[in-house]
């Protein structure tokens, strides 16, 4: 059958099981849009291409399936860039499809030409400029394969307009063959055995778990490991949900805004079992002082993460789920007899240094988040966040018990991620409650997506912790710049009216007694609802490790 490039692309998407595309059309991608018009694929028109990229990302994080976003050439493509970088930093499988000017026009600074494969070279797992329509079907399949296997990541396909318009005989390509790409699977059994020996010898083990646990679906294996060896589990921001936050062995999050007991446990451990993590600076603080007494086992699918930041005693390269399965089996041979002294020490820390905040009559953002948790913990819920203080409070005060239920920008820390990511999550999980916890700064970076939510009847709930500041930056100014609040105070629009103007419901809460009823009302509604929580202006996220300090030197 003769098909045009655009039709081939869409046909491949259908064959690969793509149910939804988040996108924004324009001249160069018109042939693709024309084919989409007849396809069995839902298209969500976001109001900005950045929204499309984040929505694809949120969809992928929530469902575990690759998210697809689409944009035209030039400004459409460059508007995707932040979203692609965001997905890259957090290893999220998204496929970005961009229109490009016709092949003969490339390299001449043509109208709406941007070298998007060049621009996204450092922020994609791989990218393609399609030069020949006969390569297209193969490339689309490769792109999905690369994005979703190994360490996941974004892949971009740049499709020149004339390639999209030219015809060829469509043949389904064979299986993907990439001789330079062989993602690891099982861990080396000898390494696994060595790790098991270290575990059996340890007196004060701590598991440090990250996004790799969530990505590989290893939450059950992780839990089994923790319970078997009675090791407490601290997660990174990306690891949240990979281990139940309400489990007795949970230490919550570690690092810059981790719980004191999490950081103390890591610093005093004699064995750190690092699972699907990359020893990011927000986690380790001063690197040379990190977990000084610990031997380290590092399990990760990406060999380049091993030894990148810290020296490890045992490295196991492989898919986290499979490696943990191997490790559990291997541990059966040992009589793992966890000492109780370590458990007791941690229990004491938990009692002595709980996460708390001062209740002084003001509306506290932490209290709002605790109430959101109380009202949603018994129903399937996804919580997306933006970036700043509210993000950290969500990580601290909402106990996530399921993987993929916490959707947040970790590596890049992208303000404006929350709402479009929530939209993507809602599209992927239509029967669940989706809440976006945001700040008055962040929400305004992609607030236009409220319109998308209304347009497609996606009943996301947006909870703004409105403190009248770029709160996290203000906190740093307070602590490290003598309270010189240089350009961090915000003059805001009336968010309730704004919500209403977009066709959503808007509510405002200024006192603690109003919190629960407002949330109940929002969660009952079948429409998108925005709640403007007018909270204490100068609340700080504590505890906090000052930048460059060891993680047990915490303020607050």
């Amino acid at each position: 059958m003769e098909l045009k490039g655009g039709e081939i692309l869409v046909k491949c998407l259908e064959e690969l099981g793509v149910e939804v595309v988040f996108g924004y059309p324009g001249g160069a991608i018109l042939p693709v849009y024309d084919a989409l018009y007849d396809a069995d694929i839902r298209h969500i028109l976001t109001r900005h291409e950045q929204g499309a990229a984040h929505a694809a990302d949120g969809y992928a994080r929530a469902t575990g399936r690759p998210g697809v976003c689409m944009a035209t050439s030039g400004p459409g493509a460059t508007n995707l860039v932040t979203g692609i970088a965001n997905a890259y930093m957090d290893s999220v499988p998204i496929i970005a499809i961009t229109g490009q000017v016709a092949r003969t026009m490339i390299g001449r600074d043509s109208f709406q030409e941007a070298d998007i494969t060049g621009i996204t070279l450092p922020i994609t797992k791989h990218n393609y400029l399609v030069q020949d329509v006969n390569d297209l079907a193969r490339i689309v399949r490769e792109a999905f394969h690369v994005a979703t296997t190994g360490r996941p990541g974004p892949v971009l396909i740049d499709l020149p307009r004339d390639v999209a318009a030219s015809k060829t005989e469509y043949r389904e390509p064979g299986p993907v063959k990439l001789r330079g790409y062989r993602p690891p699977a099982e861990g080396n059994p000898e390494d696994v055995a060595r790790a098991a020996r270290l575990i059996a010898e340890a007196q004060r083990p701590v598991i440090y778990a990250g996004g790799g646990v969530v990505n590989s679906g290893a939450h059950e294996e992780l839990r089994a490991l923790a319970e078997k060896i009675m090791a407490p589990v601290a997660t990174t921001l990306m690891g949240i949900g990979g281990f139940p936050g309400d489990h007795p062995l949970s230490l919550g999050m570690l690092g810059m805004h981790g719980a004191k007991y999490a950081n103390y446990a890591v610093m005093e451990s004699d064995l750190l079992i690092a699972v699907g993590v990359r020893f990011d600076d927000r986690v380790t603080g001063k690197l040379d002082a990190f977990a000084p007494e610990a031997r380290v086992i590092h399990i990760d699918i990406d060999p380049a993460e091993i030894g990148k930041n810290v020296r490890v005693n045992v490295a196991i390269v492989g898919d986290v789920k499979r490696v943990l399965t191997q490790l559990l089996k291997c541990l059966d041979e040992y009589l793992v007899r966890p000492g109780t002294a370590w458990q007791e020490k941690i229990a004491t820390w938990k009692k002595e240094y709980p996460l708390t905040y001062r209740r002084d009559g003001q509306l506290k953002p932490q209290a709002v988040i605790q109430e959101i948790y109380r009202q949603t913990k018994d129903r399937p819920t996804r919580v997306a966040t933006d970036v700043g203080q509210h993000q950290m409070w969500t990580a601290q005060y909402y106990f996530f018990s399921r993987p993929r239920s916490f959707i947040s920008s970790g590596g890049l820390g992208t303000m404006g991620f929350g709402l479009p990511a929530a939209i993507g999550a809602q599209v992927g999980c239509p029967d669940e409650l989706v809440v976006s916890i945001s700040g008055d700064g962040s929400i305004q970076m992609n607030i236009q997506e409220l319109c998308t939510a209304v347009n497609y009847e996606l009943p996301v709930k947006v909870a703004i912790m409105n403190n009248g500041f770029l709160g996290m930056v203000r906190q740093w100014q307070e602590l490290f710049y003598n309270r010189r609040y240089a350009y961090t105070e915000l003059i805001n629009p009336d968010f309730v009216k704004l919500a209403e103007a977009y066709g959503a419901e808007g509510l405002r809460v200024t006192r603690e007694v109003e919190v629960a009823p407002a949330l109940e009302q929002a969660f009952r509604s079948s429409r998108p609802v925005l709640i403007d929580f007018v909270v204490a202006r100068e609340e700080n996220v504590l505890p906090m490790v000052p930048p460059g300090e060891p993680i047990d030197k915490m303020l607050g």
Partner: protein
Amino acid sequence: MRHTLAVLVENNPGVLARVAGLIRRRGFNIDSLAVGPTNDPTISRMTIVVEGDDLVLEQVIKQLRKLIEVIKVSDLTAEEHVDRELVLIKVKAEPAQRSQIIQLVDVFRAHIVDVGRETLIVEATGDEEKIRAIEEILRPFGIKEFVRTGKVAMLRGSRTTSVDGE
């Protein structure tokens, strides 16, 4: 320490940009990079000379391997191998000095490949030491221009650096 890497890559447009971009982005220092197709026209081979300690080198290799179009990376440094580089040197050559230059060039088994009115172009191949030596020898005459290809390298004996070689 300097390391010589043999990198087999898909012979696709843009692959050089990927490799060069990665090296720059991760802050690795490279001394030279030479690239060309192999006997299999779908595969190009790069010889990259990088400077760095073992940790740096381990990262370079691992990061290179992550590129989808990189098929194989081998560190030849510790192995028995031959490495060669080609240089062209344009040297000032007054008629009175010509025979002296020609004699020296002969000693190095280099060649004169162009004879101008006031200059000669010398072509030499060799390892680093030989190239340095010939540069030193010719410097007193006045080097007007100097260009080198960057190092290429190959394992000695029957072992190979190929897609299915060990």
